[in-house]
């Protein structure tokens, strides 16, 4: 019995020493620390609309839609699990995970992102080649490299038409040195 009373006193002491620890959230905000993975934010100036993020997203919430010469990159963040796969694969470092975590809303539109890109259409068949931005990027890289300048003439051809052209123009085939 005596032991039990001492035990109870010790339990009371644990509580008294701790005091009040609960934060008055949301009136007293508690910012996440470190490199927190919150709501993904897209830098529309850097993004080229390549769609690598859409391939990587395990929740399949990023979709691409090519309509009427425009590509729409669409994020449905209601399903986001903040895994940061999109950020990790982005070749342009256009995605970052913001510290924002208070995302509850009664309107789904608050959790959607749409980005539109102008498409380059194949000069031969009219199919979408890629976004104007990614074509420009390849163009700039080729211009800076030592490769033959002619390569840039084929940038506005889709893969299928490029292949056809290559088959019909043997001089285009690169020599493969074993």
């Amino acid at each position, binding site marked *: 019995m005596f032991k039990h009373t001492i035990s109870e006193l010790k339990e009371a002491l644990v*509580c008294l020493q701790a005091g009040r620890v609960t934060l008055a959230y949301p009136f007293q905000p508690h910012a996440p620390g470190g490199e927190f993975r919150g709501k993904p934010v897209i830098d529309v100036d850097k993004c080229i609309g390549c769609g690598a993020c859409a391939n990587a997203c395990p929740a399949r919430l990023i979709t691409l839609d090519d309509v009427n010469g425009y590509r729409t990159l669409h994020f449905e963040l209601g399903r986001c699990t*903040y895994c940061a796969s999109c950020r990790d694969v982005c070749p342009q470092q256009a995605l970052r995970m913001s510290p924002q975590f208070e995302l509850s809303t*009664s309107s789904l539109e608050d959790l959607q992102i749409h980005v539109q890109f102008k498409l380059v259409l194949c000069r031969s068949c009219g199919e979408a080649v890629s976004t104007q931005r990614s074509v420009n990027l390849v163009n700039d890289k080729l211009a800076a490299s030592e490769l033959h300048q002619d390569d840039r003439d084929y940038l506005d051809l889709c893969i299928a038409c490029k292949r056809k052209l290559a088959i019909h123009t043997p001089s285009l085939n690169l020599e493969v040195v074993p």
Partner: protein
Amino acid sequence: MVATIVKTNASLDLQERLKAMNIRLKEVRDDMLIAKVSSADLQDTVRYIRDMLKGRLITSVGTDCRQLTGCYEVSQLFALDTDRLFLVLTTDVDPAHVSIPSITWLIPAANWAEREVRDLIGVEPIGHPDPRRLVLPDDWPEDLYPLRKDFRFDERPRSQPQKKVVLKVPPPDTSVFPIGPFFPTLEEPVFINLFVHGEDIVGMDYRGFFAHRGIEKLGDAELTYQQVPAIAERICGICGFVHSSCYCQAAEKAVGIEIPPRAAYIRTLLLELERIHSHLLWIGLACHFIGFDTLFMQAWRIREPVMWLTENITGNRKTYGINHIGGVTRDLPVDAREQITPVIDKIEAEAAAVLDAILDDSSLRARLEGTGILTPEDARAYCVVGPTARGSGLDIDARRDHPFAAYTDLDVNVCVEQGCDIWARTMVRIRELLEAIRLVRLVLKKLPKGPIMAEFDEIEPYRIGVSSVEAPRGEVHHYVMTGNEQRPYRWRVRAPSYNNLQCIPALLRGMTIADAPISVGSLDPCFSCTERIAVIDKDSGELRIYKQQELLNRFNNRK
């Protein structure tokens, strides 16, 4: 030709003995044997493994291999703990006679696994003592097996006219005392019917799997290798990192990827931090079950700094999200040691103060001592794992018996208690909490430098890998068979509660109703949970998700 020496834990004697039992060894690896046995020899072989090799059944895996071999395949996974081996015992099942002899009468722990294989693959266990449907919902059509390869992952079969839930008939002269379909105090879906004589429990019926999420199907039909860890980590809402680690390890072992030492240490560090927060969470919950809310609050207060710590070093308090096949994707911050040390020092001091206070609390001990008895024989029969097994004197711990990550370098003290009651399980967890703190310090001391991701080529198809991870609740086990479409051909997950929950009938035998919640709670069970309401219209079979306002309207109109 140079003879290659197979490095393996399996002694030649063991290999000879297996051959003598008509068990064809298909593959001998470091820590794993893959053997083939015919359907006719299965029961004798299982008895031999149970009695002579002291094999512990982990689970059964059903695979639709019709595209590869023309057969279904059922594998029984055994752990030979003293030999540090996993034994995969595979039986081919002819699609013309889709059945296999049941082994539940030999090993009670096979009960659920065999029913699950039947529900999802369609292989009937002949002679099963309780062949009711287990995993699939009651209105799921007969003869439609979702884990077969010809079943699309997003197929939505029409609901079959609702059949009455098959419940066990209570023994004569007993009353039925229902608990559920939401477990009191855990707020998770499970339904337990207790059969009682007055206050005393004489039997029970268990129904679970109300929130079956089809995660394994997603893994082998839709996701890619490196996307699976993201969903694996969400299998459990408390100890998710064990699942992503276990999946990655199984896949790595299947194709022989060696992860860099630093990655192994980071995984170990996070696994132990997870154990610290999970055990503190359980201590709080257990006290909550018995109405001791003071300690519930204090345990959770002590726990909270670990959550903030992992948020700082991984980017999230719970889903660390850094596991990939081949290593981890995010290194520790440069000041990791400075961040971690004060937190675990404080937890150690505070846990010691609480422990000192409660050890002589006679009302707490009166409630927990002698309650929820699980005898070592029952523990062995139901193949329970983790603190539940160790509280009943079973000296097993995957960190020592089947070492993984950096545990090969660390000496883990396995905490075993002989009491077999809830107090014994409590003591195991408290001692493990202190042991986890010691291991975190050791990891920080030994943490090697270097890369965190291994380089590897394409993942070779149709290789099998199995791996265990000692989760706070017990041994988690994953089975991965690699595939050729950049995703597993089969991915099987066995969570510790799968085995531990099956021992509830033995645990509650002879107890009173008031003992039931804390007895079940003492297993640290992890049912599953869903957080958004998806309502399926009974007439049209349409799925729709309600918005807040619509739900409110619906509710208001009802009044």
